[in-house]
């Protein structure tokens, strides 16, 4: 054992230099070539910066809402609810969310509410919703903005990401920015 102590220490120190230092710095260097120099994707509108990949807690009627967040959309302390599927408190919470969604979205039927709009996301920062979740909000948003439902629906369709593999999603922030941009033009 004894004769291995010195090589072990020396090797570890050099590994630290190499893997924590040189490897990290080289990735940092490559990041300077990436969009926004490795600070995450940023959308800039009217001189204001928004993190494209981080959900914002939209609550106003004129905005599309993201999925519920167990951490109140805290981008510096993300997390899920970690509630199990049979937990009575959790089920009661989901029931409350359904009721409140129905009140705030008149004209929407219970069977049309997608589960994602009443269940908390894994990170609490899920920036996306599905086309179905956007569809059940169109009526509310159109009314609040005095736009026709068909027009809002068209915007939603335009911003729906349709990847080759995986799920179809809409970035809620991008959608709301697009709609806000329209109103400011008027």
């Amino acid at each position: 054992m004894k004769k291995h102590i010195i090589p072990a220490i020396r090797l570890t120190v050099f590994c630290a230099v190499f893997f924590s230092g040189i490897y990290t710095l080289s990735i940092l260097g490559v990041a300077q070539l990436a969009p926004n120099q490795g600070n995450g994707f940023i959308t800039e509108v009217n001189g204001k910066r928004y993190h494209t990949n981080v959900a914002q807690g939209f609550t106003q009627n004129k905005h599309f809402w993201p999925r519920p967040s167990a951490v109140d959309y805290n981008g510096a302390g993300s997390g899920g609810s970690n509630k199990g599927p049979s937990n009575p408190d959790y089920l009661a919470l989901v029931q409350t969310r359904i009721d409140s969604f129905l009140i705030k979205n008149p004209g929407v039927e219970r069977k049309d509410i997608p589960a994602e709009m009443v269940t908390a996301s894994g990170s609490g920062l899920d920036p996306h919703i599905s086309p179905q979740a956007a569809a059940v909000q169109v009526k509310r948003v159109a009314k609040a903005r005095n736009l026709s439902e068909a027009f809002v629906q068209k915007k939603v369709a335009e911003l729906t990401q349709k990847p080759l593999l995986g799920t179809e999603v809409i970035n809620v922030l991008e959608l709301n920015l697009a709609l806000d941009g329209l109103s400011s033009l008027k």
Partner: protein
Amino acid sequence: MSSEIIGIIVMYALVLLMAIPLGRYIGKLFNYENTWLDRAFNPIDQIFYKMGGIDPYRQMGWKEHLAALLTINAVWFIISMFVLLNMEWLPLNPDGNPSMSGDLAFNTTVSFITNTNLQHYSGETGLSYLGQLTLMLWQFISAACGMAVCGVVFTAMKEKTTTQLGNFYSFFVRSATRVLLPICFVAAVILVFNGTPMTFEGKDTITTLEGKEQQVSRGPVAAFVAIKQLGTNGGGFYGPNSANPMENPNYITNIVENISIVLIPIALVFALGYVLKRRKLAWTVFGVMTLGFLLLLIPTITGETGGNPALEKMGISQTAGNLEGKEMRFGAAASANWATYTTCTSNGSVNAMHDSFTPMGGLTTLLGMMVNCFYGGIGVGFLNFYIFIILAVFISGLMVGRTPEFLGKKIEAREMKIAMMVALLHPLLILAGTALASHLYAGNPEAYASWLANPGYHGFSEMLYEFTSSSANNGSGFEGLGDNTVFWNIATGIVMLLARYLPIIGPVAIAGILAAKKYVPESSGTLKTDTPTFGFMVFAVIFIVAALSFFPALTLGPIAEYFSLY
């Protein structure tokens, strides 16, 4: 077929496509044959040997390999404890995060040097960037350590009688620089270009569209995430791991990260075939592992895409499956897929919260860790499988009345004793730990109320999962468990230590002892170990060990919850 399912199949195909040539490459590294990357890496490795004061050509026996491994791991332990206990005043702490408490530092240190990455802290608030970089170092070198041990065991399994099993440091350095580093680099670059942060600046503060202030954590995320996925480590930069949209921004990064989980564990099986020149044996091992993996994957996906029956009763639409704790850009199927990979391989990163899975998903993820060798962790996954091979050889030998032999070496009482001890250690640690925690909780539910986020069967599953994850060196969790307490930090810390080093010591000892024995050439009396029949035998042994020892505990947790819901 839905595009979600096609995504999963395409991903697995990509894994195989890359794992087979990578396995060949790793086999060449272990055999010290020339590869096309030598020109780049020979000089780098020379610097490592020079700086370490190491003679990479000096041969070691199995005991010396273990001595070298344990010594260097002890060094890591001390350095890591120092950094985590003093982060507050050490450099690279722009967010002013505090140092860890003693028990938390112990747990985190053990967790990272044992390749487990159980995280009782939350990355955004619990670590400085120096802390993250230190843990990242363990992610690299604990994985390299696992691969090095695997190299030693492969070398010992060759057809000859020897006590000279290569040089530990050399296996270690070659694994780190020639396998982990280049693949990590590629993965990290893909991540950065898809929006994963890579910066040393602190939190960003923005004003949301509705005028509220929002803080967003950043950091050297991409570099960290690449190795945590590739090294079967699993410890995320952010609290919710790869569910966080900065850590795993889109479906492409999800595929890259998910492939990284399993790439090297599968490649090592093919490396075995290359090193021993026994491709049929490698395919048999791969077949058994894949069969077990699929038997866990399919129910997980069915369970999660099927949705939660309790929500079904509320009359809402659950066409997209059980979405509590999941992210829309992945969907239920890709989340269930990841969950199976991460628990089968001892990776432990997550892209969805396992605590909120349906009982079926909870059951299969637990089983993946209980078996812990369907692909398994880097290096150690094969070591666990090796133990089951030894057991299967012995049992089949007894059944057909032949001398139990494996690769021309006789298996005798001493090896069997070691194999049995290692095989029984895993159930012992899990079941005894869970029993102790349940006993404490049941005796005084008020005092330990903060432990469990969920009542009833699911609460029991949370404790069972925590010990299973620790003992499998996995690191994922039913994160509702309030685990940053002295009890959980110390108890799971001890479990992780025992469950890492004893299952390394055991197989290395067996392989070392067998290597020194006389080589008996194959004859008509030899039990063939590269046939489907023998594969089935190994599978049966795994099934009996896992099913019989864990079934009672599983009935109290996920199985009971299943019947209460459906």
